[in-house]
């Protein structure tokens, strides 16, 4: 564990290497990236296993001195960090491998791998930070990695806009984190997590301050995890290459918000208001994004909204005090969502379109991708036996036991919707007849399918490390030594599990009747509420709303300031200049060229001075 700091450095090395010599390596760049992330993965696994038996390890060095305060940089391996290290490096490794097939033939192949390396470095750095400042630093770097990868197809206007939007939207959230972090520092005199928790526990921070800082930090999480109202960037981010969506916008970076809340969980626990905020935002986002997901036609956008929705779930869990539930879902979600994205990428790779209305009947053609996609769909829908079922169940229990029946209901409805739209997606893509001409639809190469298979296995089995039936191994381990984080497993009434199962099965069936068997016309639903359908398919006009308010206000204010700049500031300057010029012109007129006049004026000046001097006695006296 002493060498855990090496883990992020491998991808950094990959980034630097590829930046310098990537152009010469060309396709071989992939091997550099893959090998170095593999090294990270191996180390992460070692660290994870070591962490099972050893206590938390932490090391730090002096980074910056401000007066008396020494800011440190270092790394910490606690349960959460070790788990995140493993998840991130695993998904990252798999995506690196997958990309070799997916990005084959791209002109900027090496750049892609370099960016992936940068992102992986930042993400790994983020999850082993022992203090909030370092977290913030990597937090931003992660954002940049994401930004670069979204804008990878830089020549596409949409990619450019999406990249910009992603950066700025998350930046808005980051500022919240920034402020919260600084306020917390002045309250506790430290950025270290441990010190902050100590101060919070000792009650040396006022309650309002705790609530304020917790909510500010949560704003950062909102931005990164695409929670309402800063969610709009995440679906747009699908302009990036699909492996990127899998890595960043499903499994790792967007989960950073959840991770941040989890890492600062004792702070949130200290404030009821902050917890409630987290829960409400999470619950609302879960159902809100799910409802948009119902009507999307772009395969990746459906997955994106599902990601937003699932992240809302995790937030809801944390907000209800279900630390284990949130982290558990974070893990399982990482696996099955990465699987779904990679499978979607495989589909796109095969049919060269993202519009699901143009797909159909791919089950026979994509012999491997289709079952894997089905596994992912089942897992996310919460079908019993798969990982998603267990973690979702934990969340529902946490919401119920946390005393938020309304949020529980929301979560349940969201679960229904999730099952529905995911299977809508599945049926539209894989069953029925091809709705457009599809030529040379081939299964992806094994370099792409192998990671999917691995993720598929994980999507099935990952749930079993924390189940009500076989013991809550993960939960026990996560809260070990930190009783403040809450119970390892919350025992809930059995009907919750049944309800969850029923709901998800109902969603699946519903989707089957509409899109699978087509016994109900697809426009049965949309026909009922035309207005509603329009509103939902336009994503509740949130983008337009922002465009009309925030962007318009900023632009308007800028033009207003430009008016000030041109008329007031420049006007004053021009006024002064005009005055001086006028003075100069008058002076020029007085310049007659006659020596005698000059002499007279000069002499008169002298005379006046002399008289004044004679009358007043001058300076000397």
């Amino acid at each position, binding site marked *: 564990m002493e060498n855990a700091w090496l883990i992020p450095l491998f991808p950094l090395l990959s980034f630097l290497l590829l930046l310098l010599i990537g152009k010469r390596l060309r396709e071989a760049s992939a091997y550099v990236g893959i090998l170095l992330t593999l090294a990270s993965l191996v180390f992460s696994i070692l660290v994870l296993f070591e962490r099972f038996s050893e206590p938390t390890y932490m090391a730090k060095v002096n980074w910056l001195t401000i007066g008396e305060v020494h800011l440190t940089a270092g790394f910490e391996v606690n349960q959460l960090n070790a788990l995140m290290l493993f998840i991130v490096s695993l998904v990252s490794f798999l995506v690196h491998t997958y990309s070799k097939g997916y990005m084959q033939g791209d002109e900027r192949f090496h750049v892609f791998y370099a960016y992936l390396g940068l992102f992986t470095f930042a993400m790994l750095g983020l999850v082993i930070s022992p203090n909030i400042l370092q977290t913030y630093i990597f937090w931003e770097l992660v954002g940049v990695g994401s930004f670069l990868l979204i804008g990878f197809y830089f020549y596409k206007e949409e990619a450019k806009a999406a990249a910009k939007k992603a950066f700025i939207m998350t930046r808005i959230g980051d500022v919240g984190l920034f402020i919260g972090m600084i306020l917390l520092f002045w309250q506790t005199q430290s950025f270290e997590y441990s010190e902050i928790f100590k101060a919070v526990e000792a009650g040396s921070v006022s309650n309002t301050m705790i609530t304020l800082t917790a909510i500010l930090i949560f704003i950062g999480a909102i931005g990164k995890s695409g929670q309402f109202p800063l969610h709009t960037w995440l679906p747009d981010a699908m302009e990036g290459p699909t492996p990127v969506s899998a890595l960043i916008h499903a499994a790792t970076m967007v989960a950073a918000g959840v991770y941040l809340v989890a890492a600062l969980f004792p702070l949130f626990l200290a404030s009821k208001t902050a917890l409630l905020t987290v829960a409400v935002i999470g619950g609302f986002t879960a159902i809100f994004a799910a409802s948009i997901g119902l009507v999307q036609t772009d395969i990746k956008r459906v997955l994106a909204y599902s990601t937003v929705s699932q992240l809302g779930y995790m937030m809801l869990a944390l907000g209800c005090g279900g630390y284990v539930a949130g982290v558990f879902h974070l893990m399982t979600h990482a696996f099955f969502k990465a699987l779904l994205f990679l499978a979607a990428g495989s589909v796109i790779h095969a049919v060269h379109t993202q519009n699901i209305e143009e797909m159909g009947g791919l089950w026979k053609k994509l012999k491997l991708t289709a079952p894997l996609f089905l596994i992912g769909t089942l897992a996310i829908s919460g079908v019993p036996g798969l990982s998603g079922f267990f973690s979702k169940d934990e969340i529902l229990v946490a919401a119920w036991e946390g005393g938020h029946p309304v949020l529980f209901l929301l979560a349940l409805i969201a679960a229904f919707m999730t099952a529905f739209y995911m299977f809508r997606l599945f049926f539209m893509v894989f069953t029925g007849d091809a709705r457009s001409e599809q030529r040379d639809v081939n299964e992806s190469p094994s370099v792409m399918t192998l990671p999917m298979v691995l993720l598929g296995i994980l999507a099935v089995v990952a749930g079993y490390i924390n189940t009500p039936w076989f013991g809550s191994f993960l939960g026990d381990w996560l809260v070990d030594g930190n009783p403040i984080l809450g119970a390892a497993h919350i025992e809930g009434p059995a009907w919750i599990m049944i309800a969850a199962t029923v709901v998800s099965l109902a969603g699946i069936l519903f989707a089957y009747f509409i899109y699978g068997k087509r016994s109900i016309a697809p426009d049965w639903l949309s026909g009922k509420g035309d207005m509603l359908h329009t509103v939902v398919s336009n994503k509740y006009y949130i983008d337009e709303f922002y465009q009309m308010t925030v962007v318009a206000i900023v632009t308007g204010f800028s033009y207003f300031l430009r008016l000030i700049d041109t008329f007031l500031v420049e006007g004053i300057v021009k006024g002064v200049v005009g005055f001086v010029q006028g003075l100069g012109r008058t002076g020029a007129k007085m*310049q*007659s*060229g006659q*020596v*005698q006049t000059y002499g*007279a004026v000069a*002499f008169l000046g002298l005379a006046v001075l002399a008289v004044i001097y004679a009358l007043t006695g001058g300076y000397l006296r």
Partner: protein
Amino acid sequence: MSSVPASAFLALALILFCIGLYGALTKRNTVIVLISIELMLNAVNINLVTFSKYGVSPSINGQVFALFAMAVAAAEAAVGLAILMALYRNKKTVHIDEMNEMKH
């Protein structure tokens, strides 16, 4: 001891200087302006010589200075007049207010 005080000489010099100054600044004829300037120089010379005799520490220096001033004045008169001639040839006038070559 002399019965004429130093200030009398200085006052005389002042009056002559002022006359010269007034002439230099108001007369239109350039020759007269030059002569007025000579008058001002003379007034200064009177001061020099006066202080040479009645100064805090009387010495011959003041008189020597007056001589130098005269030499310079003579040179100035010669050059000034030469310039005047050159100007006159070009502009056919000796009136100083019509010589505005320094404009612009």
